């Protein structure tokens, strides 16, 4: 029977449905994995944004991956106990976002000041000479920016 570590490893193949370069594990939305005495895996997930419409689909994908791994029965639940923020995205995850053309969210300590959005580094040319067009974009987790250096519109993954 697969171990807890092997389950974590396997879940790395489940990607975000809208940003296929990043896994749910690297996105930080899977917060806990355990196996009980009966060999049933318990997976806890937490939404990026409360109203994110992709969350049901993500849970379903996790259940399917567990079934492939040999766990026809699993307990996968959403909880706000260990709430998500962008500091939960792994280094690998930040690279994956950039690879998808999204400016990765900056790491922060303490209180996040949204003024950081004003000079978000361009994911293409890395220039900080950029302008925030809107803190809201095509999905709840993205913002809209323009790079004054390479004259390219780009999207950012919002720091939360």
């Amino acid at each position, binding site marked *: 029977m697969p171990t807890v570590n092997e389950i974590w490893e396997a879940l790395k193949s489940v990607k975000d449905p809208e940003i296929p370069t990043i896994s749910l594990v690297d996105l930080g939305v899977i917060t806990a994995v355990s196996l009980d005495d009966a060999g049933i895996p318990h997976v806890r997930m937490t939404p990026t944004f409360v109203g994110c419409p992709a969350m049901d689909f993500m849970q379903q994908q996790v259940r399917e991956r567990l079934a492939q791994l040999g766990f026809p029965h699993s307990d996968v639940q959403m909880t*706000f106990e260990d709430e998500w923020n962008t500091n939960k995205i792994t280094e690998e995850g930040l690279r994956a976002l950039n690879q998808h053309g999204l400016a990765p969210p900056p790491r922060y300590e303490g209180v996040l000041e949204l003024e950081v959005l004003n000079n978000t580094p361009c994911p293409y040319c890395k220039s900080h000479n950029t302008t925030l067009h809107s803190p*809201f974009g095509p999905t709840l987790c993205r913002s809209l920016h323009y790079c004054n250096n390479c004259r390219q519109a780009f999207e950012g993954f919002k720091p939360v």
Partner: protein
Amino acid sequence: MNEAAINNLITQFADDALIIAHRNSEWTGLGPLLEEDIAFSSIAQDKLGHAQALYNILHTNFGGPSPDAGAFTRDESQFRCCHLVELPIGDYAFSLMRHFLYDAAEWVRYEALESSTFVPLAQLARKIKGEIKYHLFHAKTWVVQLGAQGNEESHARMQSALNETFALALGMFEPSEFDGELAAAGIYPGEQQVQQRWLELIAPVIEQATLQLPSVEEIDRSASYGGRKGYHTEHLQPMLNEMTEVYRIDPTAEW
């Protein structure tokens, strides 16, 4: 254990979020700029998620209806939203000022709820606050821009929107018979305190926008009270009729 008080509190916030979400969504396709169209639609989607998560707390902890049933099967007398969120979208200045005053109140509420002794609400409040921060950031940016950095017309329209929405906004803080009980139990500090913090939060922004904040003392607050008791403006029921139309035709429909 304060069940009725918590039920009442959460129903108020969830109903506010649901109704403002519907109103904000009415800007989809109509925003004065593409970015504003997207912003109001995104904020609507966030609020809808907040309403759903709040109804879900009542559903899982107190056996309340499922979020969908709660949202789609009640008539207006069972809603506890305030009058501010019920009004039609009006012009962009009206919707923007409402958005600012409402989100400032949500910010203060969820800040207070972060340390609530009712744990499911405290957990959700921590999460929701990160999203409200964006809503408030958006509202502040435009209120200041159109108030202080636009032209005479934009300034005048923002001032008139503020005059129109401010009295209504005070209805958000309609006192409740449960305020004392909730404060004593460490669940929620009560509307009087929240209103005071709200005024402290909005005043500097209104000043920065070079607008005049109407005086709280000169306003008959009770005129905008009633929503928390189930007495609403003439605008709510028609909106509910529209919002629930598909559900009433087929409660099992997916869309």
